[in-house]
C-alpha cells in the first residue's frame, strides 16, 4: 500500500470528529449544528473505509454507504424541522428552544 499507514487516517478521523463535535457543542445555529453532525458522520465513514482497507474486506464500505443513507435521512428530517422553525418565525438559536428544561 502506498502512502501513509492506517494510523494516520485514524488520527485524521479523530481530528475531524473532534472538530465536528466542537461545532455541535459550541454553535447555536441549528443549520451549522447539522453541518457539524455531517462532519462527524464523515469522520466515522473515513474510519470505516480505512479499516475496510486494513482488513481487506469490503463490508466496511457497505457500512459507509449505509451511513450515507442514514445521514441523508437525518438531513431531510433536520432540514424539515429547521424549515418549520423558519416558517413559524422562530429564532434560529437552539438555546432559545428550552421547553424541555427540568
Amino acid at each position: 500500500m502506498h502512502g501513509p499507514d492506517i494510523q494516520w487516517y485514524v488520527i485524521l478521523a479523530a481530528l475531524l470528529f473532534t472538530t465536528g463535535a466542537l461545532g455541535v457543542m459550541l454553535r447555536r445555529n441549528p443549520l451549522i449544528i447539522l453541518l457539524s453532525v455531517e462532519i462527524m458522520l464523515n469522520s466515522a465513514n473515513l474510519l470505516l473505509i480505512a479499516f475496510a482497507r486494513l482488513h481487506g474486506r469490503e463490508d466496511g464500505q457497505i457500512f459507509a454507504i449505509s451511513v450515507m443513507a442514514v445521514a441523508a435521512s437525518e438531513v431531510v428530517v433536520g432540514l424539515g424541522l429547521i424549515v418549520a422553525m423558519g416558517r413559524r418565525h422562530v429564532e434560529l438559536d437552539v438555546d432559545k428552544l428550552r421547553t424541555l428544561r427540568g
Partner: protein
Amino acid sequence: MANFIVWVVWVVAAFACLASALAVVSFSNPFYSALSLIGNLASLAVLFLLLAGEFVAAGQVLVYGGAVMVMFLFVIAYLGDRTDESPWSGGPSWQVVGAVLAGGAILAEVCVVVGLKAGGFLSKPAHIGRSFGSPESIGRLFLTDHLVAFEVTSIVLLVAAVGGVVLGSHARQIEGDART
C-alpha cells in the same frame, strides 16, 4: 516515486479536509459553512480513493456533495440571511470550557490508543485485488451478504421522505391557521 506522490496527495487532501471542517464550524454565515462542507466532502472523497474505495468516493461526491448539499443550500437560501440571529457561541461559559475539554480528551485518547495500544497492527494492511471497492463487487455484496441492510436502508429513506413531507405540510398548516 509512486509512494511519494501518494503521500503528497494525502497531505494535501488531509489539510484541505481539516481546514474545510474548521471553516464549517467557524463561519458565522451558514451559507459559507455549507460551501466549506462541500470542500470537505470532496477532499474526503480523495482520501476514499486512496483507500481503494472507488464506489464510495463516487457516491460521496454525487449523493453527498451533490444532492444533499444542494438541499442544504436551498434551505439556507429559503430561510434568507439571518446571520444576525445566529451568534457564534455564547451560553454558559462552562459549556465552552467543557466542550473544549471533552473534545481534547477524546482526541488525546485516540492518539494514545493509536500510538501505544495498536502495536503496529495498523501498519500492516491486507493485500487486496484490483476489483476491491469496485461498483461490481460492492453491488454483489449488497445483493448477497447485506441484502437485509440494503432493503432496510430503503425503508429508512422512505420513512425520512415521509417525515420530511409531514413536517413541511405541518408547517403549512400552521401558516394557514395563522392566516385565518
